[in-house]
């Protein structure tokens, strides 16, 4: 199943590289840029939110830090690509700080904490105009002088491919196993020696790096950024939505999610005009109600039902004592 996912995705991404050669308008390429940007961001989020099961609603922090890193370090005279690197490093440092506080919390508390950190960063960016330009904004250098729109498009397709490859590798490794164990039952994972804090942190560092890189690319394409563009909660939620609706914890879920949701959003804008967000909201509700494991998750589960039933039946043995019954009842929710 996994191999198929990887194959389909690889073919898709390869095909995507050829798309600009078909004479598409810059406008269309920009939409596709967004599709693949959020695919990459969703895949990065998936490491923490999907595999490790830690619902981060503050990924805009890393996106924004990457964006502002490029802008502000360039202003200091550093060459653009070096500034990108520094921005990514800065995003990872933020991740280390945010993670060290947030990962001590579980479930919804973790999510709320990530929201808080991202909001603080946004407000700091808004309220320190001498440093960040505040709401007026700051200029961002152009990373690709030669046919920029195509180059940005290719860069995010490559970023998506990288994120996908990384996810595939992590999924099969011990690290990936540990993340999934932490997601399923952190106490059990601890009891077999998993250093949960360290694993979660590493997942977040990698996730933040890719997200920061995405932020820098996005900022450079627009040549100008303001805090409410790269640091708002809307970006965090869009990233999370793309990954969750596509299928958190699956390999290509975020890619599928981004392709479908970003295209849908664009179509809705043209068809429904002012009502486009309302329809988008309805779409989210419908997907959650009918495909609660996400599109890819539900799909793989339905597909598995078509496989042959296992030889040994699932029937549980007759319990000899009431304790067994209650323990099993407790197990079965």
């Amino acid at each position, binding site marked *: 199943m996994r191999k198929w996912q990887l194959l389909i995705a690889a073919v898709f991404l390869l095909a995507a590289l050829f798309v600009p050669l078909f004479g598409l308008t810059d406008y269309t390429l920009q939409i596709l840029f967004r599709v693949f940007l959020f695919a990459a961001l969703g895949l990065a989020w998936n490491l923490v*939110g999907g595999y490790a099961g830690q*619902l981060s609603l503050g990924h805009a922090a890393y996106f924004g830090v990457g964006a502002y890193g490029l802008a502000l370090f360039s202003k200091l005279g550093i060459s653009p690509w070096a500034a990108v690197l520094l921005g990514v490093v800065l995003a990872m440092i933020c991740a280390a700080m945010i993670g060290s*506080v*947030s990962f*001590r*919390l*579980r*479930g*919804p*508390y973790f*999510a*709320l*904490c990530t*929201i*808080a*950190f991202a*909001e*603080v960063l946004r*407000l*700091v960016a*808004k*309220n320190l105009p001498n440093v960040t330009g505040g709401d007026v904004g700051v200029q961002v250098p152009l990373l690709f002088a030669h046919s920029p729109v195509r180059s940005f498009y290719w860069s995010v397709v490559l970023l998506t491919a990288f994120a996908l490859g990384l996810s595939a590798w992590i999924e099969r490794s011990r690290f990936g196993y540990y993340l999934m164990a932490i997601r399923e039952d952190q106490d059990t994972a601890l009891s077999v020696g998993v250093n949960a804090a360290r694993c979660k942190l590493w997942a977040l560092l990698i996730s933040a790096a890719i997200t920061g890189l995405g932020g820098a690319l996005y900022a450079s394409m627009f040549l100008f950024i303001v805090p409410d563009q790269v640091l708002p*909660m809307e970006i965090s*939620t869009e990233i*999370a*939505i793309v990954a*969750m*609706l596509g299928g*958190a914890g699956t390999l290509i879920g975020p890619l599928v999610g981004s392709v479908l949701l970003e295209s849908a959003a664009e179509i809705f804008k043209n068809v429904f005009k*002012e*009502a*486009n*967000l*309302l329809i*988008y*909201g*309805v*779409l*989210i*509700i419908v997907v*959650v*109600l009918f495909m*609660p494991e996400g599109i890819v998750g539900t799909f793989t589960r339905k597909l598995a039902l078509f496989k042959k039933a296992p030889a040994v039946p699932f029937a549980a043995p007759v319990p000899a004592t009431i304790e067994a019954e209650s323990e099993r009842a*407790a197990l079965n*929710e």
Partner: protein
Amino acid sequence: MVNWFYIPLQGIINGLLTGALYALIGMGMALIFGVMRIVNFAHGAFLMMGMYATYVVFQATGVSPYYEFPLAGILLFFVGYATYMGLLRPIRGQVDFMVILLTMGLALVLTDGAQLVFGADYHQINIPLLSRNIHLGSQISINAPWLVSFAIAMALAGALYWVVTHTMFGRAARAIAQNPYAAPLMGINVNRVQAVAFGIGSAAAGISGALLLPVFYLFPEVGNQFKLKSFVMVVLGGMGSIQGAAIAGLVLGVVESLTSLYWGNEWALAVDFVLFILVLSLKPSGIFGSQRA
């Protein structure tokens, strides 16, 4: 010599007045979170709905929001109840995030819906009370509407607390909050109690919207900031504790007010979050909580 005392005092008083409203919003969220562990991202949208509903009735009848607020409460109770029964109950077993995602989708629908119906412009209303100020001595002045909303909010907060501690519903709700597996075994109709809790929590948001109408601008995204503040209150208050959230609301109001006074408005929200992060790092169970987060 007198200003170093009176200026912060005014700030604290203003903070308490705003804080009472925050407390009402926060208690609604705390009730929902406590009983269902749902972080309701549509809470702000419910506040917005209450605000628009009151606006419409005010425009039609001229009756002051301070008399109309029960309508907002009733409307949002049913909206909340229906939301739980229709949208949230079917996915109760799913992962936390999917539930949060659904409330996010709902918020989007409600907010964009409001924009379609009412437009994106800012509205405000004018009632005679707005120009009345009450003076305590020569240094402290209180804007009358805030005093009225303070009184109503505190009364409702008290009523909510009483319901939670003295009624069968309240006891059932607390039982579910403590042990969602044992509660149904005690004969509690979990779905109904949770739906009612969601309804009451949403009603609190709606009523807060009504109370906010005279003193705040009305626009589709108005609920956003209050949603974020209610998250902060729930955490500060600890583990979905209603009293905790109420006190957290007052604290938040005062902290914001003093921050605005000395550092400017723009830092008020930031300070909320810094406080939030500090409490989460030092005492994750909240200022008033006693269990692990």
